[in-house]
């Protein structure tokens, strides 16, 4: 069985944020506005996070695109009282909004702060709702949402592959962020298949994970900058 994972090569990444906007567009994330932004309540499943190191003039800034890590041992699922967030047999940590009661335990438990709570009723200015993706449900206020590795794409891809009587190919399923990444810094695939591009890259000596020592075993693997 596949173990879906992502590799992000920070050396190739140009921090253009195409992935960030692609994610907003694909997943029907409600539009932000100045008021909610001021309260830090805008929703982003994928964010570009700046890490500033050292002081002027030796300043260094690492810019890290941060989706959900889809941990092998996700802290969020342990605290969910209703089983709304669970890890699938293929390693995708899902968030079932219909089941979520909005207690926000998981947002507190996630060390990567990838979970967002819908503080407001998601609203669209009239006319804008036409841009919504029909494959993704629209959430409502009072539930938590997060990156799902665009698993609705996996559902469709699997459905198609099965119907055509073949195995899922490596290009059949990729999330929207990976698809659009202009500098081709993001890779997606099956970490369990030793021959897949992601598995090869994950073995690179540049590879690291965010907060490795917590034992969460993230399936988003970064490749460090530099030689």
């Amino acid at each position: 069985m596949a173990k879906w994972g992502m590799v992000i090569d920070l050396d190739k990444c140009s921090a253009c944020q195409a992935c960030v906007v692609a994610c907003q567009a694909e997943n029907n994330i409600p539009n932000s506005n100045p008021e909610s932004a001021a309260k830090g309540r805008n929703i982003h499943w994928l964010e570009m996070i700046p890490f500033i190191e050292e002081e002027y003039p030796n300043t260094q800034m690492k810019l890290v695109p941060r989706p959900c890590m889809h941990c092998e041992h996700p802290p969020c699922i342990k605290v969910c009282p209703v089983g709304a967030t669970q890890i699938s047999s293929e390693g995708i940590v899902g968030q079932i909004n219909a089941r979520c009661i909005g207690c926000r335990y998981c947002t507190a438990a996630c060390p990567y702060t990838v979970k967002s709570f819908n503080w407001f009723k998601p609203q669209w200015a009239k006319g804008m709702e036409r841009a919504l993706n029909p494959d993704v449900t629209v959430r409502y206020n009072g539930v938590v949402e997060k990156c799902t590795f665009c698993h609705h794409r996996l559902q469709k891809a699997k459905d198609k592959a099965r119907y055509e009587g073949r195995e899922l190919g490596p290009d059949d399923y990729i999330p929207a962020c990976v698809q659009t990444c202009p500098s081709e810094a993001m890779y997606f695939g099956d970490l369990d298949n030793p021959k897949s591009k992601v598995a090869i890259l994950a073995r690179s000596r540049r590879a690291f994970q965010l907060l490795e020592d917590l034992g969460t075993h993230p399936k988003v693997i970064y490749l460090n900058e530099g030689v």
Partner: protein
Amino acid sequence: MRQNLFKTIFFTLVCIFFIGEGAGATEQPIQYNHYKHTQELELECSMCHQGVKDKVRATIPSVEVCIECHSEPVTDSPEEEKIREFYSKGEEIPWQRLFRVPEHVFFSHRRHVTVAGIECENCHGDMAKRTKPPSKAPMKISMNKCLACHRKLQAKTDCVSCHR
């Protein structure tokens, strides 16, 4: 006082409206006879529900599909005449859906029908044998039912396999 009166009227209206809906049966625009089509004439389900075998959605046929056979009267039923009325007005028949999964569920007909070979009855009950449109879905679709079957057939029960 006046306000209270308004409130009472409003609440009563709401009650009537929603109880009416809750207790009321779904009325279809045409008294469609599934039995005749599927059992007597032995037509395939997919003849009208055209997506059932090779699409995600089974779909309810458009009037264009009906008119293919019914452009000339084939029976003397007054119900049949309605098809041609709708068609000549250029309108769709306002069928009421009985079966639906919530919109946060991904359900693919072709995966169940074609790939897994599940019979229609499993979810739709004896729909094919009804001579009159039922007022309610003959079988209720619930997550428990999905899961029971998935477990029995050892299909995936991951949340994200179906929920989106």
